[in-house]
């Protein structure tokens, strides 16, 4: 699933780049990608590579919609206003505050371990 706001990010991920948007006017970092900066309303931005790590903010273990999948909510280390989701690939269960490392998937998504 991709739309006109997410396609660019998916392309970057497909190239192995872990990026978020950064406003060229006020430097606010944002994710998910949006054309306008919500702080200064500038439409000028660039992709900003950031460290592909974050901390686990929360997680669920699904039994219904994607049975057996642990889905994590990760707050990025170098962009703490940005939150990403993904599947948890580690053998042990996640815990709050734990450091998570991004994993690029074959279909241009980000999972975590």
């Amino acid at each position, binding site marked *: *699933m*991709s*739309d006109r*706001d*997410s396609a660019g990010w998916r392309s970057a991920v497909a190239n192995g780049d872990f990026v978020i948007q950064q406003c060229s006017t006020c430097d606010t970092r944002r*994710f*998910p990608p949006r054309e306008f900066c*919500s702080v200064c309303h500038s439409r000028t931005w660039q992709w900003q590579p950031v460290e592909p790590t974050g901390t686990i*903010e*929360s*997680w*669920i*273990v*699904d*039994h*219904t*919609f*994607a049975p057996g*999948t642990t*889905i994590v*909510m990760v707050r990025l280390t170098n962009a703490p*206003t940005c*939150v*990403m*989701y*993904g*599947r948890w690939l580690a053998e042990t269960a996640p815990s*709050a505050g734990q450091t998570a490392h991004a994993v690029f998937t074959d*279909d241009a*998504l980000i*999972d975590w371990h």
Partner: protein
Amino acid sequence: MAKRLLGGIRDRTAIAGVGYTSFSKDSGVSTLTLACEAILAALDDAGLTPDDVDGLATHRVGDSAPPSTVGPALGLPAPSWYLDQFGGGSVSHSVIAQAALAVAAGMADVVVCYRAINARSEFRMGRAANPAPEAAFQAPYGYVAPAQMYAMYARAHMTKYGTQPEHFGAIAVTERAAAAKNPRALMRTPITLDDYLASRWIAEPFRLLDCCLETDGACAVVVTTTERARDLPHPPVLITAAAFGGGSHPFDGPDMTVSAAAELSPRLYSMAGLGPADVDVAQIYDCFTYSVVVQFEDYGFCAKGEGGLYAASGSAVPYNTHGGFLSEGYVHGINHIAEAVSQLRGDAGDRQVPGAEVALSTAQPGYVLAATSALILRKDT
């Protein structure tokens, strides 16, 4: 400082009637039929007829009959005001708010607000494509359903504040006990905390009994001027405050344990000139047990982090007296409003809260889509 909005229409409009279809897992009829049945019941309750109606309002997510179909189906004489709002539970109470605005502004005199859904037999939540832009960053991971999203926020609350499964369970048990006194309720057999803990996982930390009932049914309420309502059979229930909006974080906020209701509630109370201590009965949007926890905090009934303890304390404000969406049925918000009306009229039978004069009724608090809405209703005294 809370902005003062809508204060100019305080108590100028009222709810004069409520109507229901039966609630079930398979209505066997269309949402159009459900809508018509609930609207006719609400008009009958209000002592009015379809000829009196000049406004129709609903919200839906592409899953139900629109006002432009319902009006002609009931032979309404050219309604002068329609509202067909896109949205789910978060806008459920804003529909009433907007009807109140239309009536207060003289755009319409009698507006029937309704919600009709076959949420079990036809359109199950989380099984269809998520229309929100956020879905592009969530759905590919299997993160598609409100149950998962609320479970995610519930976990954050548990890890930050120590909220326990037993707190969620107490809400499920309390609401089921209320439903036992409500002939309309789908689930009336009492449950225990052990039943809650033994129910199967949906998405950890949520069990089956954390989740509302996917329901087929409809409910309608009649909004008119307070003046006109005073000439109708039932005591008017005044729309004292009606707020919608809130939610400055369209994706994920800085603190997952705070809902959009925290931004809305000061505005709501300011409009009413009332506070949480004035609320005699609260119908709190309970798509999941956790949504009750976070709203007790964000509507000011207890301190942040203490919503679970408060809900389970046994001394909480009487809430979800019809059994809520967890046990009465899930009509996406409007059945909370109808129950609040019943409590303020004093006709809630075995489940009546003695002396109830002020009610709070709330919408989905904005975790899924960033806005919410709520009403404060008051007995006409």
